[in-house]
């Protein structure tokens, strides 16, 4: 008897473990291996508690799912909350898929395993930066609608209710309603094949509703059927689930004996993971971007040093961090530098929204408020949902710096109506109302504002930097960005001109500038007297001699040079080449 009890409790423990372990693993994966994707997802949305703002969700299909998705995504601001939500959705979907499968198969434990696979695939979708909780919510609501429909006992009532559910369903969950129709269709085939006419009506409805409502929603045909899914791949969990159901119907095996389906769905999952694996490099890049946004620039430097990524965006944030700690020229070449694009991200139609979103950060660092504002506006409107708490914060800060208080207050009042940014906003409102509370960052940026006015093109960063340095010689960030810009573009003449014009020897000559100056002086065959004006350390001059010797011996081949020169400007000058795009 004791043995039996023990065995039952052991079985329960095993079952509970089997049930809990996947959730725990999912939670831990998103908490520790993929947190920054989730942080960014919150930053590229804005959920304002205001009637007018909430009504705007009616402007596109899947209003309810997107509303719920956006509401929940704001919790991604909190560490762990995103992982918890994804895990919760996993269990909800697992249960719902199981409930759906139960309609087609006789009850068996294997059903739980079959339901587990598409639920897990849905979880994996979240490692895509543009996969939103609105998609999860639409799957949940779609399945709930189906489960609710099946609970209606009278088939005739059901037939009349389903069309209404489809109509309301398109408003609530958009294209996901097709899955609901699919399930009712399969159910009809299985249970009441002679009532297929109803299913045909449902299919016609599904085809017609997006087409009829499209002129109101003003979206292309493909989007009308997919919304809120912006990518067909994201429907993979449902495709997998549908596959299992279809194969059972086709093979008329309405028992979980159709292990074939299970095997195929598991294969689909692994194929998906292999073809489209989690992008851990992007996670690293996003960690730099997010830590910068959180103001933890020391962490940006530490992370970047450990990553050693050959990535433009990673270098871009590393350079901002270096500039924060006034060590841009000292450490610039310790990191990958794809010419000047790691200083200022180019803005254009093909830049990609993540680059556009990030492009304001460097301008803000150097104190170029007009371009900060321009880039932030672009970042806001180009973010996937045209709403971004991160950009609204930046716009508020920028307007505070330039003294446009009314504009700053507009953004701050919006943020005041959010769940997690209202304290941030309130602090800034206090600053505006009591200027003595203004933060050092704002005050410093205000001291960087140019005193004179001139025009420049958006992409002409050099002119902008010169103006900033001229307006405030203490703007070391702008000076270093200017000189490093010349060096990374190998424009030594401009470097020398601006160095002589703006560099003050009240700081130690950075090694990078010294290395560049030595090339110029060498090319100009400068005299000792001329060289002495630049206070270049003799040890650096000796190294330059050694480098030129090695370079000559190696016949200009990089392979013949010592590793110790790999981070020198001499090496960059000789060997760095822009990749063909």
């Amino acid at each position, binding site marked *: 008897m004791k043995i039996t009890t023990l065995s039952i409790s052991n079985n329960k423990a095993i079952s509970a473990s089997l049930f809990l372990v996947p959730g725990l693993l999912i939670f831990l994966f998103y908490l520790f291996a993929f947190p920054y994707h989730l942080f960014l997802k919150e930053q590229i949305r804005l959920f304002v508690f205001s009637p*007018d703002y909430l009504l705007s969700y009616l402007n596109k299909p899947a209003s309810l799912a997107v509303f719920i998705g956006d509401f929940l995504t704001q919790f991604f601001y909190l560490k762990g909350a995103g992982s918890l939500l994804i895990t919760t959705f996993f269990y909800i979907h697992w249960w719902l898929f199981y409930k759906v499968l139960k309609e087609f198969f006789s009850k068996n434990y294997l059903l739980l395993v079959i339901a587990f696979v598409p639920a897990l695939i849905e979880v994996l979708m979240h490692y895509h930066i543009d996969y939103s909780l609105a998609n999860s919510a639409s799957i949940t609501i779609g399945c709930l609608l189906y489960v609710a429909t099946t609970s209606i006992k009278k088939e005739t009532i059901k037939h009349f209710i389903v069309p209404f559910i489809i109509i309301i369903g398109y408003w609530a969950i958009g294209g996901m309603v097709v899955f609901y129709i699919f399930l009712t269709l399969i159910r009809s085939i299985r249970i009441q094949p002679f009532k297929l006419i109803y299913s045909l009506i449902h299919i016609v409805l599904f085809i017609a509703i997006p087409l009829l409502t499209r002129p109101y929603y003003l979206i292309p045909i493909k*989007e009308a059927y997919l919304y809120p899914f912006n990518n067909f791949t994201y429907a993979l969990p449902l495709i997998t689930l549908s596959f299992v159901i279809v194969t059972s119907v086709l093979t008329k095996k309405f028992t979980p004996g159709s292990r074939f389906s299970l095997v195929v769905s598991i294969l689909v999952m692994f194929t998906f993971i292999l073809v489209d694996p989690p992008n851990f490099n992007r996670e690293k890049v996003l960690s730099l971007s997010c830590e910068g946004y959180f103001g933890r620039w020391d962490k940006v430097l530490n992370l970047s040093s450990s990553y050693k990524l050959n990535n433009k965006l990673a270098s871009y944030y590393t350079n901002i961090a270096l500039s924060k700690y006034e060590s841009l020229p000292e450490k610039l070449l310790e990191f990958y530098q794809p010419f000047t694009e790691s200083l200022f991200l180019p803005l254009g139609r093909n830049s990609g929204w993540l680059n556009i979103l990030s492009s304001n950060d460097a301008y803000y660092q150097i104190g170029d408020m007009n371009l900060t504002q321009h880039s932030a506006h672009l970042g*806001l409107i180009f973010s996937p949902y045209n*709403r971004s708490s991160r950009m609204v914060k930046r716009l508020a800060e920028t307007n505070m710096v330039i003294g*446009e208080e009314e504009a700053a207050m507009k953004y701050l009042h919006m943020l005041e*109506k959010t769940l997690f940014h209202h304290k941030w906003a309130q602090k800034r409102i206090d600053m505006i109302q009591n200027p003595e509370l203004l933060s050092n960052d704002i005050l410093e940026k205000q001291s960087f504002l140019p005193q004179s*006015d001139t*025009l420049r*093109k*958006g992409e002409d960063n050099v002119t902008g930097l010169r103006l900033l340095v001229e307006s405030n010689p203490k703007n070391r960030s702008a000076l270093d960005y200017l000189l490093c810009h010349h060096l990374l573009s190998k424009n030594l003449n401009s470097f020398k001109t601006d160095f002589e014009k703006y560099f003050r020897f009240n700081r130690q000559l950075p090694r990078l500038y010294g290395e560049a100056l030595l090339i110029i002086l060498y090319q100009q065959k400068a005299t000792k007297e001329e060289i002495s004006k630049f206070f270049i350390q003799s040890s650096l001059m000796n190294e330059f001699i050694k480098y030129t010797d090695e370079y000559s011996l190696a016949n200009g081949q990089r392979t013949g040079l010592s590793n110790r020169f790999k981070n020198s400007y001499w090496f960059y000058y000789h060997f760095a080449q822009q990749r063909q795009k």
Partner: protein
Amino acid sequence: METPIGIICNSEIKTLEMKHLLIIISTLVLLSACNETFKVKKTYSTVPDLFPDYIGVTIPCNIAPLNFKVNEDYSKIDVVLETKNESIHVQHNDFANFPIDPWRELLNANKGDSIQVKVSIKKENDWYAYQPFSIYVSDDAIDDYLAYRLIAPGYEVYSKMGIYQRSLQDFKQDAIYENTLVQGSCVNCHSFRMGSAKDMSMHIRGKQGGTVLLTDNKMEVLKTKTVETLSKFVYPYWHPSGNYMAYTLNDTHQVFHSSSNKRVEVFDNASDVIVYDIAKNEIIKCDALMSDSVFETFPSFSPDGKTLYFCSAKTEIMPVEYTKVKYNLCSISFDPQNGTFGTKVDTLFKASNIGKSVTFPRPSPDGKYVMFTLVDYGNFSIWHKEADLFLLDTETNKVTAIDAANSDDTESYHSWSSDSRWFVFSSRRLNGLYTRPYIAHLNADGIVGKPFLLPQKDINHYDDLLFSYNIPEFITEKVNIDIPKLEAQLKGEGKQVRVRN
């Protein structure tokens, strides 16, 4: 001094028609059912500080309710709209939100008269009243719709924007076109013939782009770049007959200011004005409007269709001498029968003489005035804080600033209602960054009333909107564009315009 305020009953109410009476009584009963009666602890000596500022404004007799709030912290607001014969009483926690039917009744019954507005607010447990103020209800009705583009103030944005139409009698807004329909497209320069929704022009830029021309609801997509002309069609203006459209051709560039109190500058390296003959699909060129030594821009036809107004400036080296570019208001005669121009260009207002520059000349439909924007230099007035509205009297050629409409911030694009009694203009006065539409009345004597911000159902609308209202234009009815047909036409070849020999 405590003043009792409660539900308003007026003995003269019996003089109203039975229908009005019933509506008002039922509304009063409904609205006042939950209203708190109170005694005022203190009456301020001033009128309230409102958002939007509707104090002393002149409004059309058919405008949507002017919901507002007081710029103070309060837990409740109580507002009584009072006239000789009737009143509306509302009490809300957040802002004064007037029910639409009683509001309409009130306005209709008080055309040419004024409404007294009594505002009280509750702070903690006490009520405070302000001095009452008036809103003037004009006899002149306003056109039914306002069309505008909503665009982020990012100057070069094309990710999300659209052209919308808003019913002025209520708060309903519909999209005419959103660029979500064609990915990567930009939509701009919507224009209507004398406010007619059946005749419309707009440009859709991008891979599947073209100039969409709606003539009597018949749609065509034009390909407007030719080898003989400078660019695609840009700034439009309809000929009143509907047979022609004036467009500019521009080589436009965008640059940024370094100074923080200015943001962006848009300028032309070259620009011309042409007229497009819609029936013949031909561009009509005129040497006087295509000079290499002059920038010509912003064309508009007089209501009789016989004069083309435009802005003209001597060319300068751009962008180096951008502040030297000063546009004057000019005109040239146009023969609508033959589609030919006169030979003489008249300068109606030489703004350059006073160091200023004219943009957006817009003749009133009755032909009495030309309204324009005046700035220090250039033609991109929307980003000029000094931009103000002016009127040119076409009989006397006298130019006057519209002081009642102007503010310390930008007033730029403007358009007339079909009866010339109202004009709408975009202004940045709220926060210096986002343009908002203001509507003002101009009476028969040329006197302009205090403008009012386009009313919204939720007064937080402007606070929460991250888009600017761009190119507000009155239209007399709703625009109906066949979206599938538009998509099909955009995917097609489009109709290539020709240049008349």
